[in-house]
């Protein structure tokens, strides 16, 4: 019955209940230990007197908690970012080879030499009744850091959800740029042949003009210069995909005989069922390979999952070590104010009051450390995310999720319960020898 109740809750409700369950022991301790007493002024006094030791200790907790939380948040952010970057790419059809390589080349625009699909194959894909959109790609040139990618207007519209400032390209020598490309609408430039350090500046003579800019997509396409595929072909002295006499056509349909070839066809299917049908239909030995980038990523994560598991065992061991050092640190810190505690006992303070002072002090350090750690972790994730985004244009967003919250709360609870030990140990101390100082 409880299992049913649990399963019927929304994920958020489950997570919130778990979080509540994790803080409950600390809250209970807080209430029970301090009931009837007013330890706050003394806790404040102790916090202030040993402020540097306390600050160092809090910082140490914060860094270890922050690193744990940051790693989890970063990993999830990256996973989300990559999934989101691949979101517009239902199916990719390429020549047979490594799915990962092909995905990196076509979805994440990593430069690689890839075999081409020919015109008849492209047309077979494009004319398939289940296909809604089939875009050829053409790579090879670059403008500064930005790769030039030839494709079709309908794909650019699909990729940007139609959010284009300016207008769509209308001739082979016009371009729509990604949101992160450092050019303005109206700028003209001659692309270099090749990419990166190996690019040759003066290989081409034809200028392209920027006429539009896509809204941010959170993918490497934000850093690409998109032109009609015909433009890339023409610049390289190839046929433009259309029969003589219909050169004015831009984009689909292409003529198989005049089709120079494409490393990948980005396909959008009408439905999930259609996508699966297309994948199996175009998975042909020695001819074509069809894959879902989302599934390739999922596979990748599964491979990494084993590594993650190994890492999470290490992380658990590390956390246990951190908890142990926190405990040791508290034992040492508590010794600093043994004299004050002895005084309180000489004045007739009940044991539970001493206990309340020491435990409140420990819990304050732990909670402050964990809270600061959450901020640090979030900050580190944000910075790392910015770096990854700058390098790859994959939008990695920093956020703290339930997992991190549970981990943080779990740490606070475990450590607070452990810090009942130094509080208890303090009660066993002889009074008079500490009174004498």
């Amino acid at each position: 019955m409880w299992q049913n109740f649990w399963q019927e809750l929304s994920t958020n409700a489950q997570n919130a209940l778990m979080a509540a369950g994790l803080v409950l022991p600390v809250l209970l301790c807080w209430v029970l230990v301090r009931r009837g007493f007013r330890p706050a002024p003394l806790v404040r006094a102790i916090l202030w007197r040993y402020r540097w030791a306390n600050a160092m200790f809090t910082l140490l907790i914060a860094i270890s908690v922050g690193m744990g939380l940051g790693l989890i948040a970063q990993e999830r952010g990256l996973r989300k970012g990559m999934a989101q970057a691949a979101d517009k790419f239902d199916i990719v059809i390429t020549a047979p080879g490594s799915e990962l390589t092909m995905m990196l080349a076509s979805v994440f625009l990593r430069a690689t030499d890839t075999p081409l699909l020919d015109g008849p194959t492209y047309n077979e894909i494009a004319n398939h009744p289940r296909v809604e959109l089939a875009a050829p790609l053409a790579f090879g040139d670059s403008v500064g850091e930005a790769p030039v990618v030839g494709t079709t207007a309908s794909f650019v519209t699909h990729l940007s959800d139609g959010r284009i400032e300016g207008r769509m390209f209308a001739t082979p020598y016009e371009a729509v740029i990604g949101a992160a490309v450092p050019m303005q609408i109206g700028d003209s430039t001659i692309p270099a042949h090749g990419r990166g350090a190996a690019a040759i500046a003066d290989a081409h003579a034809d200028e392209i003009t920027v006429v539009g800019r896509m809204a941010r997509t959170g993918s490497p396409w934000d850093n690409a210069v998109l032109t009609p595929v015909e433009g890339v072909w023409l610049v390289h002295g190839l046929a433009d995909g259309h029969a003589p006499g219909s050169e004015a056509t831009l984009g689909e349909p292409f003529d198989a005989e005049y089709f120079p070839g494409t490393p990948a066809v980005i396909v959008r299917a009408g439905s999930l069922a259609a996508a699966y049908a297309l994948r199996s239909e175009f998975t042909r030995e020695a001819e074509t390979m069809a894959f879902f980038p989302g599934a390739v990523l999922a596979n990748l994560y599964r491979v990494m999952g084993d590594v993650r598991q190994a890492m999470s065992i290490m992380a658990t061991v590390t956390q246990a070590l951190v908890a142990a050092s926190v405990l040791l640190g508290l034992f040492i810190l508590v010794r600093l104010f043994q004299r004050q505690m002895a005084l309180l006992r000489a004045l007739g303070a009940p044991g539970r009051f001493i206990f309340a002072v020491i435990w409140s002090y420990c819990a304050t350090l732990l909670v402050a450390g964990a809270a600061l750690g959450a901020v640090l972790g979030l900050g580190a994730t944000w910075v790392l995310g910015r770096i990854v985004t700058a390098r790859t244009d994959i939008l990695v967003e920093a956020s703290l999720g339930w997992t991190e919250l549970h981990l943080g709360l779990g740490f606070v609870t475990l450590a607070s319960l452990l810090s009942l030990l130094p509080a208890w140990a303090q009660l066993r101390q002889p009074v008079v020898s500490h009174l004498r100082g």
Partner: protein
Amino acid sequence: MANEIFDLRVRNLEVLGTRDRSILSVPRLEAPAGCALGIHGPSGAGKSTLLFALAGLLGQTKGQVLWGPTDLNRQSERQRSRFRAANIGMIFQDFLLFDELGPVDNAALQTLFAPHARRPGIRRMARDLLTSLGIEQDSRSVASFSGGERQRVAVARALAHDPMIVLADEPTASLHRAAADALTDDLISRVEDRGCSLIVVSHDDRLLDRMDRVISLEHGTVTGGIAA
């Protein structure tokens, strides 16, 4: 006037230090309630140790420390805490104040753990005592206080919960003559007017002169008792 539940009777008290060296050995000591007892003796004689023993701070020592019917040496830690909180006011040789707190918070330290009902009374008493001892009650922490000021705050703390037993270790050591005499008057009047028991360790002859009785301690044993 005298309240015999606070008659002090010590029997065969033995306090051992490390390696079973005897620090204090008091076969017999009596001080009826409402009596002012002075203790003097050279440094290291065991005077502070005796006060700690009378407050039940030494744990289970040999012999008996009886306050009226209560033998502190037979009581649990918890019972002794209660007894101290309710009946004993201690002035320590080196004051032991919380440097981060102001004079009132130090003097009213007991309000942090005393039963709710008693807290306002203790706080009021702490303020009155500080005023009468000439301590300004600004919120400045006692860290910057002089030795004499700290000693007076320690006195106020010992008396704020209105204990029937006052154990004072060199309460006038850091005070100038006039302040020392004023404090002596205060302590004596508690004994005379209200029947409190006062046990004072001191080297201050003017203070010792006003005690009902003075004993001297040497090497942990009572070597002389002068009836006043």
